[in-house]
């Protein structure tokens, strides 16, 4: 009985020692980066939630894109904890897995979207159609099921710390059904240092049925 108690005591001390150094002294300073590249990919928003797609065909009322701004040096991703144990996992408290927070040198000032094709008889080619779009952050800062205004998309980038990666990405969703057979947009994003990043979407074919 005494041996059993001693064994329990030793195990308890062992586990306590694994828990005590649970707080790491992480470097909280952020790594600066620049938004100097823009990437636009198509979204399939015909279902419940938008997913990226390689298809250039969209429903008239479900025209949507995902815009990503990042540093041309490449996408930044913090290294995740490696899965190097099987069964009873290691106590992470025994070593420091500090995240790598990033901070952009610029924030988004405005988003301007121009339609390269007529959308409806009232909206001609070359029109600015920013007011017909709503946005939705694609990272964890998106809450609820609703969209947000493009102004809110820009506003949430001020002083933002990027914990997962040095990428600002958000969805753009057209609020009016396209009556033309095809659609294409130019997206210009003005940054806080007055630089403008511009890209065009791929040519979208509207599937009416």
């Amino acid at each position, binding site marked *: 009985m005494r041996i059993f108690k001693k064994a329990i005591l030793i195990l308890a001390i062992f586990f306590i020692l694994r828990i005590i150094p649970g707080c790491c002294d992480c470097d909280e300073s952020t790594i600066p980066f620049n938004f100097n590249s823009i990437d636009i990919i198509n979204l399939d*928003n*015909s279902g*419940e939630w938008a997913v990226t797609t390689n298809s250039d065909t969209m*429903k008239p*009322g*479900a*025209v*949507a894109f995902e815009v990503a701004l990042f540093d041309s040096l490449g996408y930044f991703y913090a290294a995740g904890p490696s899965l190097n144990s099987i069964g009873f996992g290691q106590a992470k408290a025994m070593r420091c897995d500090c995240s790598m927070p990033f901070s952009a040198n610029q924030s988004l000032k405005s988003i301007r979207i121009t339609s390269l094709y007529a959308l409806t008889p009232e909206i001609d080619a070359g029109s600015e159609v920013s007011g017909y779009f*709503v946005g939705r952050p694609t990272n964890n800062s998106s809450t*609820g*099921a*609703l*969209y*947000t*205004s493009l102004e809110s998309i820009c506003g949430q980038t001020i002083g933002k710390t990027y914990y997962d990666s040095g990428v600002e990405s958000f969805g753009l*969703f*057209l*609020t009016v*059904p396209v009556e033309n057979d095809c659609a294409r947009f130019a997206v210009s994003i003005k940054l806080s240092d007055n630089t403008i990043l511009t890209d065009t979407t791929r040519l979208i074919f509207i599937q009416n049925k």
Partner: protein
Amino acid sequence: MAGIRCHLFGLLMLLQSFFAFWSNAQSSEMVEKFRFSITAGGRYINRDSMPDAGNLDFMNYLYGQNFGADYGLLSLNFRMAPTEKIEFSATAVLLSDLIPNQLNIDVRYKPAPNDNPVTWGMIGSFYIYPQYLENYNSFHLFRDTGFIADLDPNFRQISVYDIGIALGPTLNFSKGRFHGEINFSLGISGFVPFDERISQKKKDANLRREYHYETHYSPALFFRPEAEAGIRLMSFGKTSGGIIIKAGGMWSERSINYKRTTYTWTTEDAITNEIKIEKQWYHKFEIEGGFYLAF
């Protein structure tokens, strides 16, 4: 193990001392000073199922079964009479989840206690009890065709609490082994307000909208008769035990009014409506049986 035994022994000694003190404290003859009862039974809830019409009526989605009791009950009741005129009663009720989330507190006042078989008094009650509200998203599933009517794939079920107070006359009788009680109460009750969200998306389109329901406390008058009867099966000293059966009902015409905010596309685009729902009859009936021990 020795420590646990020691604690249990201590607890038993404490209880024994308490009951000994309580028995000595009963200088005058009374039917009972302290009573513990445990009863089991069922609760039936019925409400007029009104058509939803243009607005969601949460009353239509209160949980109910076609056959048998809607809820199984296990009640633990404690009664204490510090004087001959006043009696306190607390009841904790466990539903199928075995969580005591229903509470009834009663105070009985008998202005002229006597040795007659029948005495009268007044009873004041406070109660709160839960019931399930479920599947209310089906209102949108049926109505909002062309939409993915609820983006939340989980089964919709929440507990809503009905809270109320009541006051009325009580009639007690005691003859030989038999004793009983009849109460008639009038009171006011209402469902504790709750919030619910229904998020939707149009099929094959970007359009999203969200309904946000914020219910109001909508108090309603109710009538609540109750009856209890018991038979003493054994007695030794000042302790007695037996079986009891009790039944009670509640009739009320009530509604759940709410504020509905409809967001389309974004939270900036909101339309708010105050919805007043037509009142409908709500009936509750409970029947329970079990054992009691009186000191």
